[in-house]
């Protein structure tokens, strides 16, 4: 069985397009794969400006749209995100300047919480079925996530961003079993290509919204979300096996942890993301106690 390809390249926002081309080419390229539209899942998790590393940077979306117009021509492109407990993306795309970028590249904004859905039976780890927006079924799904730490799941990259495709707004209710919910979302709505923007990443223990903005100058890309997240975990100096949602996604067959790293070498890109295990310990203890008391 061939290994999944994951590309890691150095980038800044001013040369993002050039580096995006390089990363996508290394990772095997983006093709329409018989789909008649493209859906880009961005990350608009909270009302935080792009320079904090919390949300998708408009510059990265701008470059991705330019790249897709170059390679896929006039194919309809949808930029999608769903409501979350702390976020109303309909406002955020206006406030943070995404609207004019969509207009420039003739792309459409779709809030997945307001889209037509159908029930997909998955018999997953937590959910028997998941409501899937129809727009995702019909499109090539490109996951444009951020390289971030997360107070609950340690890292938040492709797999966690894909969890945001669940149209239900109060997703905080799933936090009790977040790893399982992430895996189920990825089983129901697997991304076709993953791009992780780590030019301005987020570290610390208060991610994914309130962590430390870190200028890491990185771009990670690949077709396999488990491989991409495993590589991202290594970049952030975590062992992917001990990140619940990566291990469980691999077990569920979402992707492979066996990958070939292309571009930069891991030693040159891996660095400290200031994730204090001491700060994270009380949260872990609380989750273990909660699980134990529930059982």
């Amino acid at each position, binding site marked *: 069985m061939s290994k999944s390809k994951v590309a890691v390249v150095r980038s800044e926002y001013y040369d993002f397009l050039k580096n995006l081309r390089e990363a996508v080419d290394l990772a095997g390229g983006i093709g329409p794969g018989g789909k008649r539209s493209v859906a880009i899942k961005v990350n608009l998790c909270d009302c935080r400006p792009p*320079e904090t590393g919390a949300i998708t940077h408009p510059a990265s979306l701008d470059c991705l749209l330019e790249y897709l117009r170059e390679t896929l021509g006039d194919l309809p492109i949808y930029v999608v995100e769903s409501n979350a407990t702390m976020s109303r993306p309909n406002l955020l795309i206006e406030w943070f300047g995404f609207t004019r970028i969509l207009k420039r590249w003739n792309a459409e904004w779709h809030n997945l919480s307001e889209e037509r859905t159908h029930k997909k039976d998955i018999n997953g780890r937590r959910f028997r079925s998941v409501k899937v927006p129809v727009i995702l079924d019909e499109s090539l799904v490109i996951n444009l996530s951020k390289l971030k730490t997360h107070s609950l799941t340690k890292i938040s990259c492709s797999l966690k961003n894909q969890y945001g495709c669940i149209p239900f707004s109060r997703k905080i209710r799933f936090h009790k079993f977040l790893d399982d919910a992430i895996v189920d979302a990825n089983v129901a709505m697997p991304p076709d290509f993953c791009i992780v923007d780590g030019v301005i990443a987020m570290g610390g223990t208060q991610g994914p919204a*309130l962590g430390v903005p870190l200028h890491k100058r990185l771009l990670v890309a690949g077709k396999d979300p488990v491989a991409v997240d495993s590589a991202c975990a290594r970049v952030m100096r975590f062992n992917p096996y001990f990140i619940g949602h990566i291990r469980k996604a691999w077990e569920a067959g979402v992707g492979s942890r066996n990958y070939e790293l292309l571009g930069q070498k891991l030693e040159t890109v891996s660095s400290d993301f200031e994730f204090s295990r001491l700060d994270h310990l009380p949260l872990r203890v609380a989750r273990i106690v909660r699980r134990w008391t529930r059982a």
Partner: protein
Amino acid sequence: MRVGVVGAGAIATKAHIPALSSLEGVEVAGLADADLSKANALAKKYKIAKTYKDYKDLLREEIDIVIICAPSSLHARIAVDALVEGKHVLVEKPLAMTVSEADQIRDQARNTKLKVGVVFNYRYYPAVSMALAKIREGRVGHVTSIVGVSHTRPPMMGWAPSAWFYSEGGVIDDFGPHLFDLTTLIANSDPLRVTAVGRDMAGSMGCVNQAQVFTEFKNGISAMSDVSWMVGTRRVNSTIYGTGGDMFLDVICNFTRETHGEVTPMDDLRYLLGRSSSITKLARSGRLFFGALYYHRTLIQEFIASIERNQPPSPGLDDGVRVVQICQAARISAAEGRCVSIDDL
């Protein structure tokens, strides 16, 4: 390098002359002060060959650099004279009392192509450069505002009870320049408008000894600076707020603290341990007791290096001018109760 010092007051006695004496390859060639007995006493202690009553006699000697430690109102006149005589100039803060005086120095420096540095020694605390590097790296996102505090005791105990401190702008021109310099350094922009409130909290001191200065910068950053002789504490700190968190910079304790998101008990514990550790390190190295005076040596070394490499000194003339703009606008604003635009100065 042959250096001449103008002024034998407290700052020359406590900081400049000891720093110069400890530097290799630097000779203090002369010392000028209107009070010749004071200059003679200091010259005897530090084995300085010549003393002068009139600083112009010193400027005519074969010296490379003039360090101006005279009262603030004399800075501009002495600096211009020194530049005319072909000497590089290092001026104690503030560079001048008014923008027009600072412009005279700038014009003269341009004509003669000589270096002018300003003594903003607080810049040399390691915590300041560390904080600046973190801010430039974007760890607090885009800087939106700066809240600074500069509280010290009135220049009375331990310093010469010179009357000029109390007649020339008070605390705004005494300790304000250090804070305004840090603020402009962090904001990385020129000041646009200044609004200030100044009071004489003693009642009859005859000058502003407590002031709040609100500065708007051209890049949209705003800064509130609280300068006081009357609070009774000794602190120089700044909190820098950005879109991605905030950073507390405690200059005197040489310590920075970042806050992102919610403050947890672990953050408080880390703050206490970090601050205590920083103070202990400063105390063990002796720097805690000398405070900012310790960094005059580094500043003079850097100024000499900039002359040798023919590079602009840092802090230089432009830094000094920005601070003069804020000080003058703050004095006018406090006196007249209105917002003062820098372009109107």
